[in-house]
């Protein structure tokens, strides 16, 4: 069973405070930018697979802020070692949400290797995350969110999702100097 990604993101919005950093990747990023545009959205993750590592750098350098990573399953598979790095880094302010639709959505919707078998929550748990769980319906996800986000991290939440409403893919924006400068300015305003 799956639930729509945009509904999952809408459920997350009320729990994101003004000081939280949100690192979002690919279609999760495009959805999030449409649903919750804010200056502390970090969109410049560059090379595919690197969102969680950017999140870790932000978490280390900004220990008084929560860092929420909206990752994709194809992206995470390109950087699985990051789970171990994050788990062993000592950060407690990183919250990892993985949109698991089991396909490379923005690259033609080809299936992931092992699409039917990979257990991402188990991977995070085995890597040493403080907590890890999967959700396959919106109600359980919505109910669990307050506790997930108020428990010391790193925390992994795997969302077994399907694409929701279509949102525009503005690659020029996410790679723009303007987007990076907006984030930098907001981060350093205190």
């Amino acid at each position, binding site marked *: 069973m799956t639930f729509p990604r945009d509904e999952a993101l809408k459920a997350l919005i009320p729990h994101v405070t003004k000081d939280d950093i949100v690192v979002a990747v690919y279609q999760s990023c495009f959805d999030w930018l449409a649903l919750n545009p804010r200056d502390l959205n*970090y969109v*410049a*993750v*560059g*090379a595919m697979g*690197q969102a969680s*590592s*950017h*999140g*870790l*750098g*932000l978490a*280390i*350098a*900004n220990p008084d802020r929560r860092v929420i990573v909206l990752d994709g399953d194809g992206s995470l598979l390109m*950087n699985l*070692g*990051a789970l*171990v*790095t994050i788990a*062993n*880094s000592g950060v407690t302010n990183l919250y990892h949400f993985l949109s698991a639709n089991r396909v490379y959505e923005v690259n033609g919707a080809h299936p992931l290797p092992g699409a039917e078998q990979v257990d991402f929550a188990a991977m995070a748990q085995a890597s040493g995350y403080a907590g890890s769980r999967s959700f396959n319906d919106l109600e359980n996800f919505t109910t669990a969110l307050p506790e997930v986000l108020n428990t010391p991290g790193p925390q992994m939440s795997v969302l077994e999702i399907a694409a929701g409403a279509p949102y525009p893919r503005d690659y020029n924006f996410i*790679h723009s*100097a303007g987007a*990076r400068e907006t*984030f*930098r300015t907001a*981060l*350093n305003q205190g």
Partner: protein
Amino acid sequence: MVASVAIAQDAPIVPHPSGAEIIALIKQARVRHIVALPDIVTSDGLLWPISKDPKFRLTRICKEDEGVSICGAMSYNGTRAVLMMQQTGLMDSLNAIRAIGVDYELPIVMMVGLQGKEPHVHPDQSAAYGVRIIRPVLDAMGLSHSLIEDPEDVAHIPQAIDAAYAASRPHIFLIGRSPEAPTQ
């Protein structure tokens, strides 16, 4: 790893830089975060001492391109870091450096051990293919780099780090000879 080349028995003995001095100069550049994958060239002289130095926070990574992203993200609030690896990891990280360091104009400062390089030979003349291509590859990408081989080469470290952060661009220190480990 890079295939090691045989070093002639009559090869000249050359001086090596001081690991303790490099570490002191990293601190002088206001760097307190080290992100690293072990490299045999810098292991004894740099990474082991850094790992025991309470003035540093060491983040051990599983793959080198993680470190490019970690250091780039840290820089947004001015937090300085040095990313340590071997040149094989540098080659593996070129796309991340291209995207995050160059396209995004972020200050990724790296110390890269040239594993397999003959101590008395300039890297461009190394018999090891994996070594002698490094500087040309960096030049082709337009990346700033400098070589640390002789003891006096270390003096520019703080200025190079300052310049990387001032210009918000990468700089790569290539370590061509194993830094001497601090005396116990």
